[in-house]
């Protein structure tokens, strides 16, 4: 029998047992949709994290105090005495010491209570330098950022995140207003653009002040030179690793320690990304694994139905053989039928997956990314499952002796 005839016969056989065929396809359908959606959710989460980390700024290196090593645990710490100082920032800003580092933004942070008239708002206060703005890839929607002169003078100025400004001043214009932090009254000179929250902090809820102002006038306790984090921006992506080397060398020499005793950690966006997405990926693999098992169960369902079908249609098989069907033709008929069941289930599963990808984000507040590769892959897998599930029933049908098949009731 020709391929066209075989496919038509398969479709007729599937169509004549509609309920059973649809239930069989349902198994494959659910499996394919589940795999697509779990993988899509995982990829969506990874994209989200990647976006958030990229939003930190480009070509960014982050130096934090203390170092975590596998052998000796965590050395030094941000909570105790910070090992990073403004001296480190000055050293790294030098074109001679670190030619591949374009900008340095030392940051000292602390949670403080802000007061504007009668309104109180607790938030993260960041003490830094004017380079913070380009390094963190931020901009202002209103007003201006503070200058180097204001940094030198420990001027009474503050730049607020959009959320902070709204919380403190409501709908009113915050520019030029006064805000009191820990007894120091500052003038609001700018409002930061809105970027949304990252994994750890709300980037729109913070107050940015000159580092000198923070250390000498706001911070309650003492280390005027101590800083919490150093943000370094490399000249370009290509020299990111050179910048990394230079920063490490310079910091080791200013701290007078060896690599083994390093009291700081330099991380790049890439390493942050790897860490942040590792957990997501593990979860995705786990969920996709469970979904794949449901797909496998769907495949077993196809095989089961095909075996039932062979037993049920034993007279038909006998008749076809009596009329001249070769074992190969019979085998092909049942194989095509099984793979059609698999493929149809797959197509419907992909459609359900696409619908789910549109609908799910409204309920989960999680993006779902479905790649064309995943869709085509799912179709291929469902076809293969159909074929594999059909091999045994089909060869059983092919092996039936025509007389036995015709005789049976």
């Amino acid at each position, binding site marked *: 029998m020709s391929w066209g005839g075989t496919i038509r016969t398969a479709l007729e056989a599937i169509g004549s047992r509609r309920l059973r065929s649809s239930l069989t396809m349902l198994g494959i359908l659910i499996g394919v949709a589940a795999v697509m959606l779990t993988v899509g959710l995982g990829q969506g989460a990874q994209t989200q994290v990647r976006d958030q980390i990229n939003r930190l700024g480009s070509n960014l290196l982050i130096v934090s105090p203390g170092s975590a090593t596998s052998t000796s645990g965590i050395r030094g710490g941000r909570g105790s005495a910070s090992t990073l100082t403004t001296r480190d920032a000055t050293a790294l800003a030098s074109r001679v010491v670190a030619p591949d580092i374009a900008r340095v933004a030392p940051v000292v942070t602390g949670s403080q209570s802000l007061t504007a008239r009668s309104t109180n708002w607790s938030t993260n206060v960041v003490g830094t330098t004017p380079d913070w703005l380009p390094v963190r890839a931020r901009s202002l929607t209103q007003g201006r950022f503070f200058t180097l002169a204001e940094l030198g003078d420990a001027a009474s100025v503050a730049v607020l995140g959009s959320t902070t400004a709204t919380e403190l001043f409501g709908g009113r214009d915050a520019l030029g207003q006064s805000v009191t932090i820990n007894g120091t009254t500052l003038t609001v000179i700018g409002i930061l653009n809105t970027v949304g929250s990252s994994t750890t902090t709300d980037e729109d809820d913070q107050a940015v002040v000159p580092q000198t102002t923070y250390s000498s006038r706001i911070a309650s306790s003492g280390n005027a030179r101590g800083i919490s984090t150093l943000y370094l921006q490399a000249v370009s992506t290509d020299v990111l690793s050179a910048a990394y080397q230079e920063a490490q060398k310079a910091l080791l020499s200013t701290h007078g320690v060896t690599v083994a005793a390093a009291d700081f950690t330099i991380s790049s966006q890439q390493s942050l990304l790897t860490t942040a997405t590792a957990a997501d990926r593990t979860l995705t693999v786990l969920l996709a694994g469970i979904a794949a098992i449901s797909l496998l169960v769907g495949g077993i369902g196809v095989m089961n139905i095909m075996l039932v079908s062979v037993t049920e249609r034993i*007279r038909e098989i006998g008749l076809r053989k*009596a009329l*001249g*069907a070769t074992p*190969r*033709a019979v085998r092909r008929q049942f194989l095509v039928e099984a793979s059609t069941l698999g493929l149809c289930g797959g197509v419907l599963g992909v459609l359900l997956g696409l619908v789910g990808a549109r609908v799910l984000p409204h309920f989960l507040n999680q993006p779902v990314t479905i790649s064309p590769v995943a869709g085509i892959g799912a179709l291929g897998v469902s076809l293969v499952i159909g074929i594999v599930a059909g091999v045994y029933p089909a060869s059983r049908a092919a092996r039936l*002796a025509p*007389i036995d098949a*015709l005789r049976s009731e």
Partner: protein
Amino acid sequence: MSTVPLTGDVIWPILRLRDVGKVYATGSMEVDALRGVSMDVDRGEYVAIMGPSGSGKSTLMHILGCLDVPTTGSYHLAGEDVSAMSEDALAAVRNRQIGFVFQQFNLLAALPAWRNVELPLCYSGAGRAERKERAMGALARVGLADRVDHRPGELSGGQQQRVAVARALVTDPSLILADEPTGNLDSHSSADVLGLFAELHDQGRTIVLITHEPDVATSAQRVVRILDGQVDSALSAIPASAGSAR
């Protein structure tokens, strides 16, 4: 035992069985279903094979239809030795040389009449247009030109058996093999189908009809009686019509 002498004729009879034996192994028991059957059927003959149930006539029919192969002896169909053919070769012989008519009709319930009739042509690789044309022609020949799109469930028993006869005819086989074709039909439909066989015989077809009803056997030219797996030569010599006349 019948002793049909082998002649040196260049023209083979359509069927030639020589000393055909068939042994079935059921569990530890061996059953001799056929013990040395020899017979010839010539082109254009209309032969009835008669015997009570258990006589081995079904086994003989399976061997004649190439649905089974003999344990011993030889079987030539249109000059070809089918005793030792592969499964694929047997399928081809069934497809081209033999048209089957079964007691149970064995039509596919999901397909309209003409699709049932074209089924053997699907396995011989005929094109779609040719298949349809030949199926329509065969249905017209059995007088069902106006029922081509009816499914078996919408047809009477007699009409279903006519569809089955059309299916047997459609490949233009050397031999039409009918296994109790009237077993499930009322007397009117039986007469109808037997009339059809008579017509086909008049057109020069070779027909082998297996039955246990003497009335049915009378429509044939010649009756071969099977008893205990052997051809009962004494009774076979007498034509069924003559037998019933006595």
